[in-house]
């Protein structure tokens, strides 16, 4: 089996994986980072979004072997100890979640948006979240949370 080494949440991780192993399965099953979720498994819902080399990607549609050498950040890599990342805090404050299943992907996608566009308009937030589905909230509080998170991030990262 091919060996892969990647940096995950700042820590170098190596493992042997089958070629067909998806990045999301590598993260969840081999590294026990189960904050990244699998929703649709057909690259539409966005529950599996992580950052690879600074960009949001759908980890259910990436092969682990193809992420060899990459720098990956998952939802577990955002908080600083007990201090939530500003975007996580904004989702909590603005009730941007109900069941929470889509939340890791929403937060990771939202941070990528703010890193590119520090002051997004409401329309830009809604357009950016095209690839993240929520079945609970109706999106309104998610959009409020992303706008507040963008303010709190003060221009990225």
């Amino acid at each position, binding site marked *: 089996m091919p060996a892969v080494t990647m940096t995950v949440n700042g820590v170098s991780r190596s493992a042997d994986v089958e070629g*067909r192993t998806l990045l999301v399965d590598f993260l969840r099953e081999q590294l026990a980072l189960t904050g990244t979720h699998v929703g649709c*498994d057909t690259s539409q819902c966005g529950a599996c979004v992580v950052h690879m080399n600074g960009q949001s990607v759908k980890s259910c549609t990436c092969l682990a072997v193809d992420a060899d050498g990459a720098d990956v950040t998952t939802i577990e890599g955002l908080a600083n100890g007990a201090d939530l990342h500003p975007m996580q805090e904004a989702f909590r404050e603005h009730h941007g979640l109900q069941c929470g299943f889509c939340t890791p992907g929403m937060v990771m996608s939202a941070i990528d948006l703010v890193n590119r566009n520090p002051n997004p308009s409401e329309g830009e937030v809604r357009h950016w979240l095209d690839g993240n589905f929520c079945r609970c909230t109706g999106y309104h509080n998610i959009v409020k949370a992303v706008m507040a998170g963008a303010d709190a991030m003060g221009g990225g990262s």
Partner: protein
Amino acid sequence: MDDFQYHAPSSVDGVLSALRGADDGKVLAGGMSLVPVLKLGLAAPSHLVSLRNVPGLSDIEDHGHCLKIGACCTHAQVAASSVVQERIPALAAMAGRIGDPQVRNCGTIGGSVAHNDPAADYPAACVGLGATIITDRRKISSDDFFGSMFETALEEDELVTAVCFPIVARAAYAKFENPASKYAVAGVMVAQGDDGVRVAVTGAGAGVFRVAEMEAALADDFSADAVAGIGVSSDGLLSDNVAGAEYRAHLVTVMARRAVEACG
């Protein structure tokens, strides 16, 4: 998904020899089309040959009369490129509407044209703008490159390395998209360039096609009114749970009119 042998050579020659050494090899670029196909079991290649270690395939070059876009340029890269935005704004706008942000961060122009999904946007952009597909061994005009769904002129061991888009006087793309997948139910690229007017349709048929009657009408009178009354036959158009063939035929005319209007 069946397992496969994975290779990630560091040169185009390495990719080609890996493909030649495989029983049934497939090239992996961004994976946004290929990985779902593998997961659904619609393909089960013996070898996957990744392009991620091949340098020089992600450049966007302005050659004066055309833009040369490397095969591994992502849709996000093309959409955000100041050169593309300035020189062929219709192309940047089209790339910015493919899929969703995460798909645009990974999906590539080379992967899109080589896969030739009948609802993909790039085939209409290539044929509409009169692009040339560059491979490791030859140049192929878009008119000759794209076949019916998932078919292209590529040989088994041939690799798309770049796509060259001529600079046109004006162009615009209009699409009616599937609200979930963002694939085109019907998408039309209209362009007026040195070799006349081109109207290319994706999403509606089994593969990208041109509409000669609209091209002739626009050559005489480049206005939305010139195409508003020109219909296409629904014979051979796709019909699925999103849209029937007759509705797709209707959409082609509407999208063509909107594209001409957007040309300004």
